[in-house]
């Protein structure tokens, strides 16, 4: 590609890869990068194409902006959907992201399950709880249909409600904070020094 083509195509390509951002945000970024290119070329006396090479490919630069947007949305959100979507995006970058996504999914499923069973307990007390057999061995926990049988006895009674609610809520909060922290760490790791 000729020098002129590189210089002309960089802002167009950057704008294109900034797709999910609003038009105003995209134009602001392209304008700022344009100002940087002029400043850096003037300061160093380097040709513009060398400054553009130092900035890196437009798709990589745009990806860092999009990730930043995702992280800042995730840092304000408590929505598991927003956070899992951000974690899923991270999962496309490598094994760390895949782990974050699946651990996040696991944390949300466990947390939601516990909160749900706590809410169901007052309506289905015989079918919800933690059961042990006559020898004191753990049998099962959660919602059971049909009930676990006469040999099993439910050990928590109505204590199940505050316990499941507390552990479930803590699991949801811990998952939320873990995904947020992982997203932030991931952006730091990808920074180029």
């Amino acid at each position: 590609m000729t020098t002129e083509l590189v210089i002309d195509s960089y802002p167009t390509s950057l704008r294109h890869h900034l797709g999910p951002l609003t038009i105003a945000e995209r134009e602001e970024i392209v304008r700022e990068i344009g100002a940087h290119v002029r400043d850096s070329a003037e300061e160093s006396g380097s040709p513009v194409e060398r400054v553009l090479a130092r900035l890196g490919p437009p798709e990589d630069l745009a990806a860092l902006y999009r990730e930043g947007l995702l992280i800042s949305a995730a840092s304000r959100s408590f929505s598991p959907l927003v956070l899992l979507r951000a974690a899923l995006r991270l999962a496309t970058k490598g094994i760390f992201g895949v782990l974050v996504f699946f651990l996040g999914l696991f944390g949300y499923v466990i947390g939601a399950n516990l909160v749900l069973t706590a809410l169901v307990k007052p309506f289905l007390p015989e079918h919800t709880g933690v059961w042990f057999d006559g020898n004191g061995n753990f049998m099962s926990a959660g919602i059971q249909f049909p009930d676990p049988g006469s040999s099993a006895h439910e050990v928590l009674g109505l204590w199940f409600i505050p316990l499941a609610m507390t552990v479930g809520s803590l699991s949801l909060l811990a998952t939320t904070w873990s995904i947020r922290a992982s997203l932030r760490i991931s952006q730091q790791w990808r920074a180029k020094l």
Partner: protein
Amino acid sequence: MAKPRVQTAYGDSPDRWEAQLRKGALEMAALASLWKGRLYGLEIIRFLENNSSMTLAEGTIYPILNRLKLEGMLTSEWVEAEAGHPRKYYSLTEIGQQRLRMMAEAWFDFSRGLSQLLEPVLENQEISQ
């Protein structure tokens, strides 16, 4: 003489470890560069080069500044230059200043503790040299 490259058991070289350490401090360094007043992107890069040992790739700082702005820690304005073109200047917001103060306190507490722990390591090295 060049330092020998030591490979750790988990395949991570000291150079890589140091790079990760620096990357972890990048957000704090970017905020700290604006403590005394507004700067634009290239000035922040040069400020960090001259006042810390952080040399950034040119494309690294802008997405970070953009995110810090979205998170309410920075504000920005376009300023027309007397000669040349407009530049986007960044300043710390009240939230950014509070966050930076908190980061600086945590950093100094952490590094003081760690320095005590590491002091004997370097003392032994001096003796052996």
